[in-house]
């Protein structure tokens, strides 16, 4: 039960792709900083349908992407605050920051 933490956009860093190569069922992903942009690419959304995905509320609102997120229908995005982020890190066996 690993929480995979991605901080960079897939447009210029391979972290997201690498995470998906090694992720196992039961693991989750949290997207912070530019990694929230993953949710704007349909190709990435298609790869994430089976994975619990968390994203920080502030990062989304900072970028004015709340509306865009609402449009995402084919999967559930858990929009959480920092306290819940801490909670999730405790809930999982460990965190890997790619």
């Amino acid at each position, binding site marked *: 039960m*690993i929480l995979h933490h991605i901080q960079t956009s897939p447009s210029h860093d*391979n*972290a997201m792709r*690498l995470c998906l*190569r*090694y992720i*196992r069922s039961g693991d989750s992903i949290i997207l912070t900083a530019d990694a929230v942009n993953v949710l704007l690419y349909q190709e990435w959304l298609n790869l994430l349908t089976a994975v619990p995905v968390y994203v920080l509320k502030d990062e989304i609102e900072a970028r004015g992407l709340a509306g865009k997120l609402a449009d995402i229908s084919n999967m559930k995005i858990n929009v959480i605050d920092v306290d819940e982020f801490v909670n999730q890190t405790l809930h999982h066996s*460990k965190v*890997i920051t*790619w």
Partner: protein
Amino acid sequence: MKKVCIVFRHSPYGTTHTREGIDFALLSASFEQQVSLVFCDEAVLHLLPNQQAELAGSKDYVAVFKAFDLYEIETVLACKASLDALGIDQNELAINAQIVEAATISAALADADEVLVF
């Protein structure tokens, strides 16, 4: 004693990520941590022989790879998908890393107490 798994994913010399990770790995090993290393993506390029880091303006930190067993770092995994993508064969590698499938790396990540990615 903790099982620490260190993952390298960046290309040699272009950034300082790997060098920092190697320093951390050797330090952890010398503090009796059980260290395992994973090379994936372009970091597998570190495993090629005949490198001359100084020509890229970098300290030759790859030379220390030969001392891994001296530091009791026994587990060195190289991602097969990455090697294949870069057209690198097992016999080209300068050190005897185990070439493994992604699932084996996933298992190593799960097994470790801590995983750090450089």
